[in-house]
């Protein structure tokens, strides 16, 4: 989908400095910028909910048990 966005001269200069080195096109640079925005959103959610790696690991144990009793029981 094509969209048009307005950027300041400085922002455009910054982005174009990356195009050709890190990205093949401005579109690819914008897609990656959105990926990083999403990641930051997810990290903020994890911080606010105090979700640590240890808590995720504990949750993973019982989620895996459920999956191995259902759709993935062939692995059990």
């Amino acid at each position, binding site marked *: 989908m094509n969209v048009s966005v307005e950027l300041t001269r400085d922002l455009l200069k910054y982005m174009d400095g990356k195009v050709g080195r890190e990205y093949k096109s401005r579109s690819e640079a914008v897609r990656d910028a959105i990926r990083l925005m*999403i*990641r930051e*959103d997810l990290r903020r959610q994890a911080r606010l909910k105090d979700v640590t790696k240890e808590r995720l690991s504990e949750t*993973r*144990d019982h989620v895996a048990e459920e999956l*191995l009793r259902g*759709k993935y029981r062939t*692995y059990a």
Partner: protein
Amino acid sequence: MSQRNYSGENTGHTPEAIADTNTLYSGILYEGLESDLLDLAAEGRVVVRISEYILDELTRVLEEHGIRAELAVKSMEYGKIQVTPEDEIRKNKRFQEYLAESKKLIADAKDRPIYVFAKLMMEGHPNAYLVTGDSDLMKGDVTAALWGRVLTTRELIKRIIAIP
């Protein structure tokens, strides 16, 4: 970027990382080496592959903590992470052999799907590695069965950045 279909045709020399659930959620939710690995995937310097099982685990774990899993899926999509459907994995002619092998080698059943997936994806592809910090998957007999190609995230990143 290196691309290959599930039957195993490799058309490039880009390293491939078979990521486990811990590697994936660490990379998505926290700063650190796993996050750097996902950035390298977005740049096309490594292909990160996961199975449908890993995706199912990840989305359910995030949902249980009230984190929007659909955003994580979008992030992976934009980050060029490749997801292999479970039915494709099970169609592979060596699936049953590797499944049986996983049951002999790995006591913790939740590590078997990643073992089978990794072995199928790594077979005949010397640039593909299982990336994990799981001590059960890093045991000598498991590593040997995976042709010694089990790396930590740090070890894989060192290899990637050594490639000009």
